[in-house]
């Protein structure tokens, strides 16, 4: 697995492994060619970075349950709860942002732990558990917010957390996303704990047999997912300067799309951090670029859909091409008249 470095890479393996990155590059070139005046600017790059950073966090979060073979459908709701709690606590109780962060991460962890216990220890279906718990959380959001937007009394320096740009260019949320990607990459590929998660996802029975605590791994995965969703909600508020009760629910499908897309690249066949990251920015860049070209709104979902399908087809074609090559090599052993073999009958 991480032992790939040594494998000799053919050109086609490389292109298939980095197809997403190539796609992102192609997209950037395309939009640059189309709108050289406005697309390839620092400001535009900065806003694409900023606009997709929160989604990146949610996508990284759901990736962890996916790695252990479980689905978490709740992060949109959990992030919404975090949004409302963050905005509410900051404005109503003038809490210190750090305290708020601690509280919402704790709440996130508790929600994740609930799902984790139900899925990991009681062995319930994760789709239904996360849908159920997510639904309850959605109710909590309504209960707490009454559907109202919280916009007053969110301190300026809190908003700065989300809106400052380093060197007038790199937005802070992007930096948070990069930092978290790096940590997650490190843990998932360079630490035993991360490797065990992959083992659980690949074969829970075998994982149990080699002494991995499968229920606990699942619990941890859900806790991470919910905590990431909470963090995403927190940053969302600092980016927007207000708390919208539904603002984070829209993340669900794009987050899954990014994780699935990501699994076609970098380490094909495995959910992986950089694949997910590039996938988010691939789709994000496409959206911005298309609207810059003046596309109608129906173009965006179509583009997203086509990207998804092309990415999996491309990954698959890579495999098919490799197999073909193997078959061709095997064919070369067959002596000349390899055609209809009527040479010999018993």
């Amino acid at each position, binding site marked *: 697995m991480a032992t790939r470095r040594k494998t000799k890479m053919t050109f086609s393996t490389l292109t298939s492994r980095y197809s997403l990155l190539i796609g992102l590059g192609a997209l950037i070139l395309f939009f640059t060619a189309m709108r050289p005046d406005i697309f390839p600017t620092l400001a535009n790059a*900065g806003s694409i970075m*900023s606009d997709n950073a929160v989604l990146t966090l949610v996508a990284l979060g759901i990736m962890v349950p996916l790695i252990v073979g479980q689905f978490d459908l709740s992060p949109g709701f959990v992030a919404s709860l975090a949004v409302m709690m963050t905005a509410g606590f900051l404005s109503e109780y003038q809490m210190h942002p750090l305290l708020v962060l601690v509280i919402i991460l704790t709440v996130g962890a508790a929600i994740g732990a609930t799902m984790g216990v139900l899925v990991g220890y009681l062995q319930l279906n994760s789709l239904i558990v996360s849908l159920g718990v997510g639904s309850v959380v959605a109710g909590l959001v309504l209960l707490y917010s009454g559907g109202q937007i919280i916009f*007053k009394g969110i301190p300026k320096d809190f908003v700065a957390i989300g809106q400052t740009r380093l060197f007038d260019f790199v937005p802070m949320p992007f930096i948070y996303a990069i930092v978290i990607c790096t940590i997650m990459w490190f843990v998932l590929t360079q630490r035993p704990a991360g490797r065990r998660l992959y083992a659980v996802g690949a074969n829970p029975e075998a994982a149990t047999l080699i002494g991995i605590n499968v229920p606990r791994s699942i619990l941890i995965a859900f806790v991470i997912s919910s905590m990431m969703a909470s963090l995403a909600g927190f940053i969302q508020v600092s980016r927007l*300067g207000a708390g919208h009760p539904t603002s984070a629910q829209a993340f669900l499908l794009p987050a899954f799309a990014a994780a699935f897309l990501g699994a076609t690249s970098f380490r094909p066949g495995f959910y992986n951090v950089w694949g997910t990251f590039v996938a988010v920015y691939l789709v994000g860049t496409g959206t911005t670029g298309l609207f*810059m070209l003046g596309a109608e709104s129906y173009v965006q979902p179509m583009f997203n859909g086509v990207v998804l399908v092309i990415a999996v087809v491309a990954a698959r074609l890579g495999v098919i091409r490799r197999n073909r090559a193997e078959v061709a090599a095997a064919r070369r052993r067959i002596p000349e008249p390899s055609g209809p073999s009527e040479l010999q009958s018993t």
Partner: protein
Amino acid sequence: GENLSAEAEAAKAIALEQMSGNVQWSGPETSPAPIPGKRIAVISCCQAAEGAARPARSMEEAGALMGWEVDVFDGAGDPVQQNQALNAAVDAGYDGIALIFVDTPVVSDGVARALDANIPLITLGSLHNTPAHIPDVSHDWIHQAKGIGAYMAWKSGGEVNALMLKNTDLYITENGQFKGAMDILTDPAFCPDCDMDVKDWSLANLDTQPAAIATAALKADPATNWVWCFDACMSRVVRTLIASGQGSTLMGAGYDCHGENLGLIRDGMIQAVCAADPRDWEAYALMDNINRMIHGQDVVDHGIPTRLFDASNVHELTEHEIDEGWQGDYDFRSKYKELWGVDG
């Protein structure tokens, strides 16, 4: 000190007229006494939206005054659930049903059953669309929208370059808010040099699409000087633009005047104007009309006012109005209590 073209002047006149808070009562002068104990079902398109939740609250408030039981059903933004709520209300034998931002044609099954059962049915925010005999109490959407269009034309001297973010889910946004604004913006008499880029979006994507379209469209056409959509959309657009460092030369025009948007206007954060309607007043008017329908009388027009707010007159609103919405510059509550002969 403005040097305005004739067209812009004409637009200015329309806008200014809507900015003054000169409200007269033009509603009914009598009302039948409410019969205590009536049960009213209020079906809200979506309680998660302030624009619908606010009138729902006022209907409960008015109902309490009238000695009625008012139950609010949340349609959760989903016509299927709205229809289900409507059916449940019919089956539960309510004495009257009010729809808030629920388009009657979209729930025609429940509407038909309510009409069959002779239950008084009335809408808020559905215009007078089909079927014609279902009354609507809300203000004149087109008139109000013309005010917004005129304001835009005026403020950019007849040279509007607008991104119109048109929501497609509700009949009134399309045929009221959008139509009215476009009536002015496409009229050479007010706006000879106006250029509108119309982009559709739907409520399902409220939190993502308008903002994404706006950020990109603005970069694509830096000459854009206006962005137009109703307030819930506007605040998301504004906040995203600010987060991505855009929009310093842009103006925003919205509808509803939610507290958040009034704050944006006051603080000079992109949004320049909003069009308010006194939704609490509309709620009272709706209850008054239901009362009439219960008595077998015809509904009446309550002459609901509207008003535009920008940085120049936003300070005329009270703190309470900034939180709860414009109250119509008139003590309508006392007036209705008087009409109904109740106090509380």
